[in-house]
């Protein structure tokens, strides 16, 4: 009975250690920190420790059924060293997890190139659990960064590929890689050189620019798209909305200025009018917003944008009227309620225009 209890205890301990090792590897893959040696060493250590732990467990099973027990035998010391290695790896995983999980920083995107993929395709056709990429360093010119590759990234990353690496600052100040993706800009330009009418490729390129925060390039690419495919109103409006949400008024103006005269579209007038007003070109902005309002009298947004435009132009009476109408159509807009409280006294004092 005693012997059985010992076997069960050893089994539970080893399975727990194996689980922790697997978890630490997972943490290192998800919240990977670029490192020339440490990542791979740790990953290798995790594998070695797990393997050894299993071997020692088997040995312990044999001992459990009758072999003499020597507490401080080399096997027992090795067993404990392995356990310590796993726990160390686990703590490192915990560190990386907290570094990534609590990180609120925006990603910085670095175009670079994969020089080599390690252990990607073995001669035996066996898939190994660890694959890494040696990537040209974006912080130390001429050097390489070694990054663990996640299973879902394996098929689409290869040696010689131009990629964009998204690096985040890290909660503990240790930079980590949240994403490695193909350089869509480079790929798209190659496709467009072969098939200039590839509409989806142009759209993907614009959205890639937006995702990376390269807004002027997004606006230019979206304008090129609109010139080539003038019947597709939805895409230009979608991108203009995305740019508006990110307060990129100049880029919205660049995108929509040529489109607005060609198309009597309330959304285009609304977004362009708002962007112009935000740019300080209030009379032009107001003209577009008034047209949008006339086309969509039940939509609160043109009134809302008009309110801000008139307020910016110190036309308080019109601003108050526009904000009030916006609030009627869309109750509960906190910034409008605040602005109305501020503007009403000013409107009362100001002479009527």
């Amino acid at each position, binding site marked *: 009975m005693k012997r059985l209890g010992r076997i069960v205890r050893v089994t539970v301990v080893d399975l727990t250690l194996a689980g922790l090792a697997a978890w630490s590897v997972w943490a290192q893959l998800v919240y990977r920190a670029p490192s020339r040696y440490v990542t791979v060493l740790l990953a290798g250590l995790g594998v070695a420790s797990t393997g050894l732990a299993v071997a020692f467990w088997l040995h312990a099973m044999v001992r459990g059924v009758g072999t003499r027990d020597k507490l401080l035998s080399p096997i027992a010391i090795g067993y404990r060293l392995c356990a310590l290695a796993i726990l160390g790896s686990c703590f490192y995983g915990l560190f990386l997890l907290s570094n990534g999980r609590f990180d609120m920083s925006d990603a910085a995107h670095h175009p670079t190139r994969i020089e080599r993929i390690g252990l990607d395709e073995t001669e035996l056709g066996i898939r190994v659990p660890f694959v890494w990429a040696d990537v040209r360093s974006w912080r130390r010119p001429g050097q390489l960064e070694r990054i663990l590759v996640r299973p879902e990234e394996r*098929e689409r990353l290869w040696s010689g*590929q131009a990629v964009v690496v998204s690096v985040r600052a890290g909660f503990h100040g240790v930079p980590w890689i949240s994403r490695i993706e193909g350089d869509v800009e480079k790929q798209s330009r190659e496709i467009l050189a072969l098939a200039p*009418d590839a509409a989806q*490729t142009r*759209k993907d390129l614009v959205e890639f620019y937006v995702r990376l925060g390269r807004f002027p390039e997004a606006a230019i690419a979206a304008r090129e798209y609109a010139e080539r495919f003038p019947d597709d109103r939805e895409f230009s409006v979608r991108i203009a909305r995305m740019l508006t949400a990110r307060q990129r008024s100049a880029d919205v103006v660049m995108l929509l200025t040529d489109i607005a005269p060609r198309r009597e579209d309330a959304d285009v007038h609304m977004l362009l009018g708002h962007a112009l007003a935000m740019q300080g070109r209030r009379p032009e902005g107001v003209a577009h917003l008034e047209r949008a309002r006339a086309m969509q009298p039940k939509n609160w947004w043109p009134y809302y944008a008009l309110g801000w435009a008139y307020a910016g132009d110190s036309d308080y009476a019109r601003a108050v009227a526009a904000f009030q109408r916006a609030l009627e159509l869309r109750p509960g807009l906190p910034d409008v309620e605040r602005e109305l409280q501020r503007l009403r006294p000013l409107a009362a004092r100001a002479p009527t225009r």
Partner: protein
Amino acid sequence: MKRRTRTLLLVGAVVVSLLAAFNQLAGMSLRFFGTSTVAARALAHYLAGDYGGAARLYRDDLARSSARTPAESPSSWLVLARGDLAQAEIRAGVESRMAPADIEPLLTLAEVALARGESAAAVELAGRALSLRRDDDDALLLTVVAQARQGAFSAAIDTLKRQLRSERAERRRTVFLAVLEVTGDLDDRPLDARPNGLLAHLHRYLRVYDPSHAEAAIRYAQRAIDVGDRADDGYVTLAALDARHGRPTRGFARLQQALMVNPRNTAALLDAARYRAKRLEVAEEYRLTRAAYDADPDDSFVAASLHRLLVQKLGDYRQALTHAEAAVARHPRDAEAWLRRGQVQAHLGEHPAALQSYQQAAALAPRTAELEERTGQVLWQLGRDVEAFAAYQRAVALDPLRPGPHHGLGALHARARRWNDAIREAEMGYTLGGREIAQIVGLCGLYVETARKGEATTCLAEALGRDPDNAPALAMQERVRGLPRSASASR
């Protein structure tokens, strides 16, 4: 050597042999393991590498088991399986007259001709079946066997390549046995008289049922390369097996070798394009697929590959339309070309023209669920709701598990303000896997319209999770915030 050591070595050898045998048997299809003594003998012949003998014994086994199958009016194939060639021929003739568009009797007649050694007649009959259903696997394989029997090895390779690219297997057991038999007969020839290229392809096909054929396929492909017997196709076979064995990069290198031998080998070009596609190298994928199309624009499979790439990945509808127009002009009776043309016209907003193309496709070939769904979409765009409804219902009848028609029916019910029916259909579409962003947003819209706040919130979370800037979803989210909690949400 001590007795104990000898025993240990013997036990080790037995264990290794058993493991190797189990490894081979475990990978084999169950069709090799019958319950009769004849089937057991057939298996023994098969394992000994006598594929011809095995096929003949398996055919005997099939005849006995088919004879036990009760059937008041057995089909021509069942009669053929029972081994009665004369009756099978008569019955197939009757079936063919009753249903001229059915390819099964033609296949039976082709098999009968093959069994009588009339290879030319078999090729002709299988060709008639292929004119009714292009790329039918059984018809292609029968053609391969007949061409091999005629000694037209190069033509047989071309036909088998057509079959292999579909990655499907035959329906008829008798056709499988014919393939196995011809493989065995060709294998039994003297080494220098074997058609290495064809044997490589035949073993590649048989690998579907028994992975151990991969070794033979590699051996023959290597030999074909060495002797210059369609070396480019030999490399393609090696590449396909490399990809199967988890070495796609090595396989790609083989494809490049194939293209060095023959830059117009469409199989190598398309396989290389597929490899590039997996690595998201769309420009290279396009270049290779386009090269395959330029090499053989009349090959419907290649044309369809280019069409899919242009429409689904690149969105180059103008180029896709140019190719579809050219295909329709060259082959006015090609239903698939009309379908492709209609699809591109629909993308370009030319709905009346798209409808005409779909109608033309429907007139030339049996209606499919895909065709009915696309017709329904165009009719919906044209506001012809009653006809759209009928088209979607036909699509559901043809393939009840296809999600698109359910979403289409949901949209039609919604337009008629039959909300419960609309939600039922859209949810069915979603459950069946129809989860494109537009379909999800459509379902969210139905929840919003019916003030189901809980479902709407969950649905919009999914839609905005996939596309955070989706304008209709954002607008709906605003509306949902103003909704009271629905009964379903408060449960």
